Every structure is written in structure tokens, then in C-alpha cells.
């Protein structure tokens, strides 16, 4: 039990290795999921599983699509400035 506890504690005292490649942008997705879930949990008048799931997925999709479009616009501007 002590070893298990020590192992769990140790994982929180040493940072993970994360490289600065395009794949690191995927860390955005769990965060967007958390934001969507908590926001919908506070905004829906009644929590019913199917409705809650539907609303959360819609919000998640909206945020991801909006961020993708924003990234595309910024990339285009950067490309125009550089070229």
C-alpha cells in the first residue's frame, strides 16, 4: 500500500515529457471537453443524460471548429506576411 501511494505521489512531483510538435496541440481536446461539460452542467435547467450529452457534444464541436478556423486564418495571415 505504501509503495502504491509513493508511486502515485511521485507521478505528481516529476513533470511529464511533452515535445513542442504539432501533436502537442491535441492537449487542447481534454480541456475543451472539461469546459463544455462544466459549462453545460451549470447552464442546463435540468440534467438528463441524453440531452446533457447532446448539448455537451455540440458545444465541444463548436469550440473545436471555431479554434480550427481561427488557427487557419492566423496561419493564412502569417503565410501572406512571410511570402
Amino acid at each position: 500500500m505504501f509503495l502504491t501511494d509513493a508511486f502515485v505521489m511521485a507521478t505528481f512531483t516529476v513533470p511529464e515529457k511533452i515535445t513542442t510538435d504539432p501533436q502537442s496541440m491535441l492537449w487542447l481536446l481534454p480541456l475543451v471537453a472539461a469546459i463544455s461539460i462544466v459549462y453545460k452542467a451549470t447552464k442546463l435547467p435540468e440534467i438528463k443524460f441524453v440531452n446533457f450529452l447532446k448539448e455537451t457534444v455540440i458545444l465541444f464541436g463548436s469550440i473545436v471548429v471555431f479554434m480550427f478556423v481561427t488557427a487557419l486564418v492566423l496561419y493564412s495571415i502569417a503565410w501572406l506576411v512571410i511570402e
Partner: protein
Amino acid sequence: MTESRPKENHTIFLLTVGLLAWLIPGAGHLMIKENKRAFIISVTIILTFCAGLYVGSIGIINPSGAKPWYVAQIMNSPIVAALGYLAKTGDYTVFGKPNEIGQIYTSIAGLLNLLCIVNAVYLAHLCKIETAGEPKCS
């Protein structure tokens, strides 16, 4: 909650809900018997916060070097202050991408909890207006 509840009692009730929501994410909603909301909020915020700590270690809680992040992080719970005290020893240094992602995760978790604190207090206040005479919320 009854309509005869004195105004002071209602204020104390709202303060208690807000304080509980800060102490343990979701506890404010639990107090006003919004059990489903409480469960969802609690699990999501605690998981997001722990994910941030896992990625960046407790070194990402830096009360002196990263004050704006710390202000957002402490919205999670007062436990963050204890973690900040531990991290102040300087034994848990973290730089670069893990630091960045860890700080973003823990700070967003804190800001989400702030949203939940405000929501719990608002719902507790609405309880008084909507359930006149019925002991539903407290």
C-alpha cells in the same frame, strides 16, 4: 427554506454554499440538493486539476513566480495554497511545455470552479424565491 427565514440567515446560507463550493468542487451544489450537477462538476474539475498536476508536477503552483496563474489556481480549493507552500521549497522545478500545459489546465479548472461557485450561490438564492414555504434547498 421558508419565506420566514430572516434575511441574515439567508445571507449566511448563501455564504456557506459559496464557501463549500470553494472548499470542495461540487459541494455547493450538493448542499442545495443538485446532486447530478454536483457529481458532474466535482469529477470534471478534480480530474482537470489532477491532469494539470500530473503533466507539470506540483512545481506549476508557484505563488511568487507566477502570481496571475496562482490566483486562478487557488479558485480550485484552499488545498492549492498548501501545495503552493510545498512547491515553494524549490525542489519541484518545471520549465517549458509541461509547465505551460500544467498551468493552463490547473488555472482553467480554477476558473471553472469559480463559475460553479457563482452558479451554486445563484441557485441557492433562487431556491428562496421559487420554493416559498417548501424546504427544498436547505
